[in-house]
């Protein structure tokens, strides 16, 4: 449990919001995105492809970090919500004949709606039961998509139209960079709203938060649905970027990747999921030379890093900062 004082800080913040809605993190965020926008000058097709998938993973990790890290809801359905977004968009485009961009919007809305309903049904459960309930949801989604192969084509894969007329990965690089910036900005801003402070108060001590007048259930449901919508929209764009949907996207291994990205980068930090996603994509691809041993080395590295830095890269950076500050102080004393 966190100390009483910070809880009161959080709750009083819900009454007195900061003067500016522009979060401090967003300035470096926009700067980093602008800098990244020049990267394609140096990267080849393959690297661009890996980068856009990393951005996609980062968006999912941000959306999961929002519910799990900031909201304290250890959901295991983020990958399934993204998959549902993908298939919903495909349904809108292929069955209703809507334009692809409208399909993406439909995908986001469908996932948000399902997320809201899922949250409604499961959010009263305690953490361990909640985790399993969301896992069941994901498993049911995967199996239903597979079984109904007459509609979804199951494991044969559903071909969907591409978003752009070119296959050049540079287009998708900018698309997902933009989406990532939006997801990052939206969560940074969200965390500074009343809802953002409330959800963190609920996470730290639900009973105390309720006693202080927070409608905990509503806050949780809203955040859960928002995060589901974010995942669904990303999943829809992903489908139209790969040109193909398959139930294997809802396999638990994909959820593991999301969790690993968020935690390796820094759980409950804004930058963590982005750093983590890019890092694991880069490392997994760098290990391609080791062929069969690729994932063994990858998992071993992960375990070592987790073991040394449970707080992830952001935690390691904090340690580094502390170390430098101390050294500077020590130098100051000797002078």
């Amino acid at each position: 449990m966190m100390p009483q004082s910070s809880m009161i800080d959080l709750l009083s913040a819900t009454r007195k919001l900061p003067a500016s809605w522009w979060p401090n993190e967003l300035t470096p965020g926009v700067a980093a995105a602008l800098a990244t926008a020049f990267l394609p000058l140096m990267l080849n097709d393959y690297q661009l492809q890996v980068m856009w998938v990393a951005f996609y993973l980062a968006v999912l990790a941000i959306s999961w970090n929002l519910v799990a890290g900031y909201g304290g809801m250890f959901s295991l359905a983020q990958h399934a919500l993204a998959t549902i977004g993908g298939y919903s968009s495909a349904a809108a485009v292929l069955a209703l004949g809507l334009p692809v961009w409208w399909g993406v919007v439909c995908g986001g809305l469908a996932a948000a709606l399902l997320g809201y309903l899922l949250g409604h049904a499961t959010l009263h459960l305690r953490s361990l039961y909640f985790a399993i309930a969301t896992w069941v949801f994901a498993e049911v989604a995967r199996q239903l998509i597979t079984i109904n192969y007459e509609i979804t084509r199951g494991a044969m894969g559903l071909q969907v139209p591409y978003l752009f007329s070119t296959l050049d990965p540079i287009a998708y690089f900018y698309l997902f960079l933009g989406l990532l910036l939006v997801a990052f900005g939206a969560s940074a801003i969200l965390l500074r709203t009343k809802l953002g402070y409330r959800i963190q108060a609920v996470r730290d001590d639900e009973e105390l938060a309720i006693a202080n007048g927070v409608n905990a259930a509503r806050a949780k449901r809203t955040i859960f649905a928002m995060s589901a919508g974010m995942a669904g929209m990303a999943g829809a764009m992903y489908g139209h970027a790969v040109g193909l949907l398959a139930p294997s996207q809802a396999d638990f291994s994909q959820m593991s990747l999301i969790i690993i990205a968020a935690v390796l980068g820094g759980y409950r930090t804004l930058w963590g999921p982005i750093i983590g996603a890019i890092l694991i994509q880069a490392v997994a691809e760098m290990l391609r030379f080791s062929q069969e041993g690729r994932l063994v080395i990858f998992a071993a590295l992960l375990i070592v890093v987790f073991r040394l830095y449970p707080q992830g890269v952001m935690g390691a950076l904090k340690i580094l900062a502390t170390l430098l500050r101390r050294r500077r102080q020590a130098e100051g004393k000797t002078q």
Partner: protein
Amino acid sequence: MDFELSGKLAIAAAAAAFLTATATSAMAQANATPVNIGVLTPLSPPGDSAAGQLIVRGAELGAKYVNQRLGGVWNSTCPAPGPVNIVKGDDSGLAEKGMAALRSLVTNDKIAGVLGTYDSTVALAVQPLAEQYKLPLLVTQASDDKISGNHTKFTFMTHTIARDRSDVVEAFIKSYGFKRVAILAENTDYGTSSGPDMQKRFVDGGMSSQLWIFDKTNPDLLPTLLQVKKFAPDVIYNMGVGAPAYLIVKQSADVGLLPKTPMIISYDLPIRPEFWRNLGELGKNMIFLSYYQPKQVLTDAGKWLQEEYRKSYNEPALYSSLAAFGNTIVLAQAMNAACSTEGEKVSGALVKGGFTSWNQTGVAFKQSDGVDWQRSVQPIMVLQYTKANQGFGDATILYPPNMKTGELVR
């Protein structure tokens, strides 16, 4: 405290240095190889890594054959002789991983052709990339007929599609007078493309047939098999691949379907040595589809492969390995014929020429209509074991009629 912190940072720095060093050394190695051929196949979950490993084995032996027997890719009339080298790309059975792996093979390894795709999803996702890169893509074991149906210039289908398999099984089942066929198909692209097609065929042909699709991760098939028992089939068609194929046999015996009801396994699983170790007496009288019969129809290349495979792995090569081996040597022959490793020319040669593969049928890719676009057709045989622990070479050939060596044992 400071010690601990700086120690941790030192370990991290060492790890980063190690990674960079190994990565650069790997890149340096890659530069030394003249003609790279990519194998894009699942080597990690959620993909079927067992199949992927068999495909890699076949392709690697294919490269060895090309280098030892064909003297590399170029023939004597071409200027620069050079060996071929297999580069693996793990697609994890995921479309997006397959795309990344293929782009990596193209940009980093400069491959001249790619083979090995196992999941239809991966094949369909990388098909447009092959067009973009003008890269010959030989589809080794993905079975969806959309792949050839898409009529793309650089895709060459070498795996059997649902229709061919249905043709053979239907003819076999009709010729032996079976009337009630139970089909058990796994929920992968293999099962969901072939299973329903086959059931429709049987029903249209006046037989009665029922299809059960099961989840590949579910090892408990007893309830499904009880339904099969209720249906009272006179033959069971087992469309599991790997573990489920064995589980269907074992659990059919548990519900009392075996040994009374004949069973057909949909590929050449029974030629593996562990077939008898895993199933013992249950494997007796097993009927199975195979793409060859070792005594009669192997080419020199095929015989060489079986010998080398046995030397390396101490067991006979399975269809996955044979197919990948065949793809590799066909690709090399096409490069020879074109006297080039350029994609345009190689695929031109692939369309034009007939090639030698591991079986005597040969390989040709005609630009025919519909799903027959650039698709080479494999003969399929139906074989049966007649006693326990029988060798593959002693199995009876039941189908096709012109190759028949014995009668069905019930």
